[in-house]
């Protein structure tokens, strides 16, 4: 299912805005598309910026552990994480 929830749409916009992805339309980011390396082609520096933006907007802290190793694997995965751990929606 490729329809995006409101949260996913908001996060897609957050990604584009935070990382200054001028040529990317938030609407074009597919929920299951990889965010890193292929797909959107983000790198580790982007991961830090995003972690910062997500934390500020949604209040959830991201850290490296087994459980959330895949939190940035796709928009959907990120949105699920925020849904579960975020303080604000």
């Amino acid at each position: 299912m490729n329809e995006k929830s409101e949260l996913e749409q908001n996060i897609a916009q957050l990604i584009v805005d935070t990382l200054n992805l001028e040529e990317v339309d938030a609407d074009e980011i597919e929920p299951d598309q990889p965010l890193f390396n292929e797909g959107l082609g983000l790198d580790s520096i982007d991961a830090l910026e995003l972690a910062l933006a997500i934390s500020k907007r949604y209040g959830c802290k991201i850290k490296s552990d087994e459980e959330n190793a895949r939190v940035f694997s796709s928009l959907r995965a990120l949105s699920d994480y925020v849904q579960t751990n975020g303080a604000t929606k």
Partner: protein
Amino acid sequence: MRRFIRQDECVSTSTHKLSKLLSHSRPDDPIVWWCNKLITRDKFLGDVYFVASQLPATQYAINMCNDRYLFLVAFAAVLVARQTNLLPPNRAKTVLEDIIESYDDCYYLSDELIDDLDLQQHKISLPAFQNELHRAGALKKGQGDDLNDAPIDIPKIADKHIAAITFTSGSTGRPQANKKNWGGLVLGALLAQSRFGIKDGEAVSIIATVPPQHMYGLETSVMLPLLTGSLVYSGATFYPEDIRNAVANMPEPRILITTPVHLNTCNELLVDLPAVKFIISATAPLATCIAETAEVKFQTQVMEIFGCTETGSIASRRTLDGDDWQLYDGFKINRFDDKAFISGAYLAEPVALADLVEVESDERFKIVGRCADMVNIAGKRGSLSDLNQKLLGIEGVRDGVFYLPDIEGATLGTTKERLVAFVVAPELDEKKIISSLSVMVDPVFLPRPLYKVNSLPRTQSSKLPRNRLTEFYNTLRKT
């Protein structure tokens, strides 16, 4: 002509033993925190001998271990086996291939093997049982198969042994090799120890966010702990929460080794940190405001190290003390023509700095800018001409150039600065070009965005001066 001091005049020509480095520690002293447990000196040495005995019998090991402890064990094991660690500047496939082409007798050494590599690969594994490591130690002492509790011998490595070769991208398009001999690495660690006031035998905890494969991480999280017997953290240190967790897990006093990007993110995300004696930042100049915030928030001092892959770390300052950098003891700086040269300590010959500096004295200098060819994106140094050559080498690309825009209001060391590229390639789309670049360069240098254009604004003599590129860029942005 000034006479430059050679490395063998600074240190005795006798073999540098690791025992000099670990001499203040006892066999049961912890030296690494790894996987929720403390690794003692003896366990570490046992692991080193075990791994050394398993290594392929060739001269060069491309050490790509991801885990810091495994990198440390692999690094030392390679030395014990009288081999040299090759340390690529990034994980790009073609860079790796270039290095493999230049070193006939090499293999890939890591904790994670990779696909599609036409080269022998060796996966590091540690001894599973305690008696295995004792056996390795006992064999080393020539005591046959007896299991015993005697401390494990500390290996001796010759000063002149090439411990590592680091690589930089230069304007030639091929990686430039920088040989680091063991004596030089040890001396570098001694100089850092002296500068940062780490006493012999002082058990300092070192938490680093930088990879051990690069000079900065090698010096601070591999050589410095080996020298002082400090406790080094081996675990995730990527997100601010990871860093906080790492610091909390380690005994005081603690030193955090990091970069402007990471420090800035910590400032933004962390309310506080457990006490750190000081924070060291390097890889790019640190903005005063970031240092200021960190000092107040984390109740600590923020220091910086200046250096480069070719020279290693050579100078330091406390950011808030001002613009002057102080060279480590034994180094000297001189101007010659329009370049600054560093000499002394372990350098075999003077090395030109890529940065534009104002020389204040032969030991102090200020940084005023960068040579036009060099860029620094989030702490990674790159050569524009190297990047351009790689771009032009892509089949289907008729012309192209990388450009780093001036970004208004960007704080140094934050991540807003990214390269853009203008490319003439009628038959290729942006994704294809970026995909081709991605196997050749570090991900941070990938253009964002890549503009496909009909032609570049070259002058009559085919040059691309910066002002033309700036105008070109501004026009493209408006459309």
